[in-house]
């Protein structure tokens, strides 16, 4: 597990040319500084190969139609790829310079062809934390939608912690941990206790349940674990639906980072009965750290 390659255990910031990119870069730099980890900016060029652009509706095919069409389509693709590559490079360089300026020791950039899903699954090895915007380029036009389609997919399929961030950067100072006593959350507590990411920040454990006292034992355990690791911890239980309780706490008490365990159920079950993770992700406007 513990490879000593320099690029290992990096923070991977997934950026595209949307309004979220600067915030993603800032949060990623923040995480990289706290973790003392290398930071990599990843820009995926999806050239949408299923999109036809031709305006020729003549329907006539003449001598060598197929060869002519092949060379025309490939040269169009070539031009598009080149333009996208150059634009992406300049864009990544700006982000890199900013991150270096903010004090991250090691920053790298990478551009890849393909789609976001495929690329991230391929890159997962050696990543300590993914940072991505709550919505990408593809979903930006649709402002109603709080959560991009890619984001939900990434959160579901990645086996690494993921930080999803809003468009505005605010350095996290008060952390809310959504606690429900499930195994995935308990593992999350251990991860937080062991990681330097949140060291020194006040933590608040919030357990939302209809049966008061149900999680008391595990809540005590969590508090104890975090205290032992040197955190300043408070804990509370509140009745109601998790999404509503947590949303209310964020609104009234000014938290600026939410931590939770993500998707313990199968996609089918979530699709049928709804998922707490998705509901919370949609409801909150603050950065959310999802632990797997």
């Amino acid at each position, binding site marked *: 597990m513990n490879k000593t390659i320099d690029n290992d255990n990096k923070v991977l910031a997934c950026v595209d040319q949307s309004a979220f990119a600067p915030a993603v870069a800032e949060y990623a730099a923040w995480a990289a500084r706290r973790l003392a980890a290398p930071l990599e900016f990843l820009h995926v060029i999806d050239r*949408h*190969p*299923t*999109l*036809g*652009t*031709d*305006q*020729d*509706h*003549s*329907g*006539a*095919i*003449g*001598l*060598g*139609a*197929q*060869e002519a*069409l*092949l060379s025309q*389509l*490939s040269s169009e*693709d070539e031009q598009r790829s080149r333009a996208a590559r150059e634009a992406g490079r300049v864009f990544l360089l700006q982000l890199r310079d900013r991150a270096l300026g903010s004090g991250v020791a090691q920053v790298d950039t990478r551009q890849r062809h393909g789609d976001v*899903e495929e690329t991230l699954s391929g890159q997962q090895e050696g990543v300590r934390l993914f940072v991505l915007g709550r919505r990408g380029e593809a979903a930006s036009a649709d402002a109603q939608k709080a959560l991009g*389609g890619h984001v939900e*997919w990434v959160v579901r399929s990645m086996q690494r912690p993921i930080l999803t961030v809003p468009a505005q950067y605010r350095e996290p100072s008060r952390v809310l941990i959504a606690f429900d006593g499930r195994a995935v959350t308990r593992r999350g507590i251990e991860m937080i206790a062991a990681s330097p990411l949140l060291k020194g920040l006040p933590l608040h454990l919030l357990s939302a349940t209809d049966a008061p006292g149900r999680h008391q034992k595990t809540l005590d355990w969590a508090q104890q674990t975090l205290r032992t690791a040197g955190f300043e911890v408070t804990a509370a239980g509140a009745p109601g639906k998790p999404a509503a309780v947590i949303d209310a706490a964020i609104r009234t008490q000014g938290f600026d980072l939410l931590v939770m365990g993500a998707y313990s159920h199968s996609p089918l079950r979530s699709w049928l009965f709804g998922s707490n993770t998705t509901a919370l992700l949609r409801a909150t406007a603050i950065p959310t750290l999802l632990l797997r």
Partner: protein
Amino acid sequence: MSIQTLRQDWLSNVRNDLLAGLVVALALIPEAIAFSIIAGVDPKVGLYASFSIAAIIAFVGGRPGMISAATGAMALVMVVLVKEHGLQYLLAATVLTGVLQVIAGWVKLGVLMRFVSRSVVTGFVNALAILIFLAQLPELNPQTAGVTWHVYAMTAAGLGIIYGLPYLTKAVPSPLVTIVVLTGVSLALGLDIRTVGDMGELPDSLPVFLIPDIPLTFETLQIIFPYSLTLMVVGLLESLMTATIVDELTDTPSDKNRECVGQGVANIATGFMGGMAGCAMIGQSVINVKSGGRGRLSTLTAGVVLLILVVFLGDWVKQIPMAALVAVMIMVSIGTFNWGSVRNLREHPASSSVVMVATVLVTVFTHDLAKGVLTGVLLSGFFFAHKVGQILRVRSTSEDDGRARRYHVTGQVFFASADRFANAFDYKEVIDRVSIDVSRAHFWDITAVSALDKVVLKFRREGTEVEVIGLNAASATMVDKFGVHDKDGADDLLLGH
């Protein structure tokens, strides 16, 4: 199949898909009618087939953006069946073809496509273009009733519009303009020339489900099975080749086995809807991609628009002069033909050109694309065996002051090179001992091993002692399921031990 893929396949290119589907539908109508005439059935059989295949393959096919419908390649196969047994047997054969294709997809026959070389594919495409062209000739034959000079003039004018109009505007499909203008002229002048209406019944309603009216006996199966088998092969060949072409044009992958199953499902349904068997179409798929079609929606649009046009504008479709259809089909034939392959005849290796030309000739003379492709594949195999057979060298050095000789065999020994191998030894040499080092050769089959046995025997008859070195390694390649490719050291074993 995730929601993501579904959305990508269907909704990533909506506007272009709808427009391209429309263009394709307009070009599909004349084709479906023309191919029905080739097969010897009413135009409605081809039109229902084109609708049903295009609409169904849009959902179940493995290659988004590819157009499937009633095709010339398939129509040519069914001519005799229709002539001797009638339409109902064709419908039954269509269903059976579909069943065979589904099975082919399940057992992943698609992988056999890698034995079909580039030259065979080119030959197939060219033969198809030639056959489509030849099928138009009866409409241009002065002996056919109703073919007057008007027909030639209209066909020429039609081709003029098809190729000339895109220079003025690319917004409207020029084949459509051709059909509209020629129909208008023919009606205005009251010309007495052959029209689509003379060719047989057109659809007057949406297709209905019906079971082919045939006796369910073994004799029936005996009649339709050979046709269904050929139809399956031809349909899958053209579909997989077209899928490869579309893959190449759009630089996206496709699922070939899903395409096989999809073609099968489409044909089964089509047989029950009174349509003839079909497959993917090279010309139409090129038109679709050229018009901007990429997703499944383009294929669905093509099928649905075709049906709507034909059912609701049937009276107008009847009036279309055959000359207009001939012009469109000549365009399809020209657009399908691979003209680069003619230029390349001289530049490419002679063996490739022979394979291509043989595929074309056999297909054109038998009217059976399956036979043409089989010829091409076999010839490619022969040529390849011949070429690889050349990679064999036998050197020898004399040892032990002329009392012994050592032969070093390098290269490939198999049925095509076994004779050369056996003849490379000097049996008349007066010598005590011979050693044959085969550790740097491969013995691929039984012929090779028996050739070595023969060599050893011949030396023994001369009273020479023979020792064979390294045979185990050399014949390791002979075992059919050697499966060394994925084990350690496989490269060493296959590339000279």
